[in-house]
């Protein structure tokens, strides 16, 4: 007999209250997680969308990429050894539209690589967000430190750094603007090969992302919120089932006296927990996806299926742990105790 279902059917109000709290907490978690993902894309899509691999910058740079200057000799030797490696630099700067309007961009310049847009001298490839701001292919842009003019050659999707759209420029143009001969970073795709290069420090992709100070601070605070909410939902389950179990201690004792196995009582509680969680999660996932579709364009929001599945499984797991902890009383209650107690 499905006692779990029968109890929920009889006490709809009680279980609906718990379900709606879990729904609200999980919806909030999905939305904050979507914002964390969105902001992380907005902050570092340029790096995040690269394949896994090793990033190198000079040891003297002390984990600050824009202080890194890799010597041409080292760069040439690494690029010769690793055919798919790329040296690149990122600098924040401005471009001026023909109308005089100034826009903040992240200038990116690299050696030849399929991982970065190929740009000739005097050309620029921009992040697509600038296209929706009115810039078109063929437009002419200028920079205060650059003698010539940039012709917009094209746009690329999802290419942002430090919340600014990326502007891919030729390496010679980059050297002219920033009066610098060296590149800041070398990237060797293909996972951690354990490669060491004299004078350079190696970083995995995640380690490198965390050297971007705004990225680390932003993600840390948002992820902390997400995990707090997950823990809160676990505590909600523990408190709710604890209170329910306290009310039912006498009943559990009597059921044990007549021969009901303790495992049956635990299964009943777990079934209820799983049902409530799935019910609440289904609604919050649906609403989260709707929000994903209707969120304003300027709002950095990205709720992927992977994140949704990961968070949903975490909710189920933490709900299970919370309910099980509160269920320890079920194991401890003795039939005698219940018989000596009054009516339940």
């Amino acid at each position, binding site marked *: 007999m499905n006692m779990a279902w029968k109890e929920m059917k009889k006490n709809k109000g009680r279980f609906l209250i718990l379900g709606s709290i879990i729904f609200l907490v999980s919806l909030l978690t999905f939305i904050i997680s979507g914002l964390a993902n969105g902001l992380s894309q907005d902050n570092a899509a340029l790096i995040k969308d690269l394949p896994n691999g090793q990033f190198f910058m000079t040891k003297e740079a002390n984990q600050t990429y824009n202080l890194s200057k890799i010597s041409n000799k080292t760069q040439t030797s690494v690029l010769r050894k690793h055919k798919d490696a790329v040296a690149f630099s990122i600098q924040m700067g401005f471009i001026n539209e023909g109308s005089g309007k100034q826009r903040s961009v992240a200038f990116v310049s690299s050696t030849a690589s399929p991982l970065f847009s190929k740009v000739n001298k005097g050309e620029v490839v921009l992040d697509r967000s600038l296209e929706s701001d009115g810039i078109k292919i063929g437009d002419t842009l200028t920079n205060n430190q650059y003698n010539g003019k940039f012709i917009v050659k094209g746009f690329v999707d999802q290419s942002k750094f430090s919340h600014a759209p990326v502007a891919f420029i030729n390496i010679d143009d980059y050297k002219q603007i920033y009066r610098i001969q060296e590149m800041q970073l070398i990237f060797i795709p293909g996972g951690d090969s354990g490669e060491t290069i004299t004078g350079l420090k190696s970083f995995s992709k995640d380690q490198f992302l965390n050297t971007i100070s705004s990225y680390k601070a932003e993600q840390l605070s948002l992820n902390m919120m997400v995990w707090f909410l997950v823990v809160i939902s676990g505590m909600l389950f523990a408190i709710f089932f604890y209170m329910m179990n306290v009310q039912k201690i006498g*009943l559990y004792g009597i059921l044990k006296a007549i021969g009901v196995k303790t495992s049956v009582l635990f299964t009943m509680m777990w079934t209820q927990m799983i049902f409530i969680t799935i019910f609440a999660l289904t609604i919050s996932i649906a609403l989260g996806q709707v929000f994903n579709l209707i969120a304003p364009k300027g709002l950095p929001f990205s709720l992927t299926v992977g994140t949704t599945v990961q968070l949903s499984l975490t909710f189920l797991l933490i709900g299970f742990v919370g309910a099980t902890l509160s269920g320890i009383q079920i194991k401890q209650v003795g039939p005698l105790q219940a018989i000596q107690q009054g009516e339940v």
Partner: protein
Amino acid sequence: MTIFTIDKVRKTFMNGEMKDEILKGINLSLKEGEVTALVGASGSGKSTLLTIAAGLQPASDGKVLFEGQNITAMNQEQVRKIRASKFGFVFQFAHLVPFLTVEEQLMLMLDVADTKLKKRQQKKEIAKILKLVGMEHRKDAYPASLSGGEKQRVAIARAIIHKPKILFADEPTASLDSKKSKDVMLLIRDLTKMLKMATLMVTHDEEMLSYADHVVKMRDGLVQ
């Protein structure tokens, strides 16, 4: 025929450093179709004896033999199985499951006793027992809508639905008025005979003793 024997059962509790002997070597036999009433003052050990006999707590010494098996020597799971399939329980309060209908309370007991009856057969059995206890018209009712007497009738139905060999009743009429108490006692006596069970009942109500075949008086942990 004797189907249940309590043999030199002792129960000792530690009260601080002092040993408190609640039962001092009790012998008792229960026969098919008979109601045995245990009476005595508070603290005489009657409830302790009932719970040891029902396998709800262990004895300190002695044996409890059911159908030739010593249940005091069994592990918890073996005792649970016997409780579920061979024993029935009626308590002072009905202790019904609040979210199950009368019919579902009995279905639960059939499942717990592992009777392997199909749902249709279960319903048939339940209808029969509910008729016996005069509750067939309330099979879809929840406990909250039943009176005290009705609840106790359902509790009795739950205790006998799986055709137990022994019925343990701990003050089954204590929460009822005298009219309902008599009805319940009549029911227990009649069902004991009809189903050929042995009933062991604890009561402090002298009026209820007239429904018992045997009365065992207890005093200070001994049968008088």
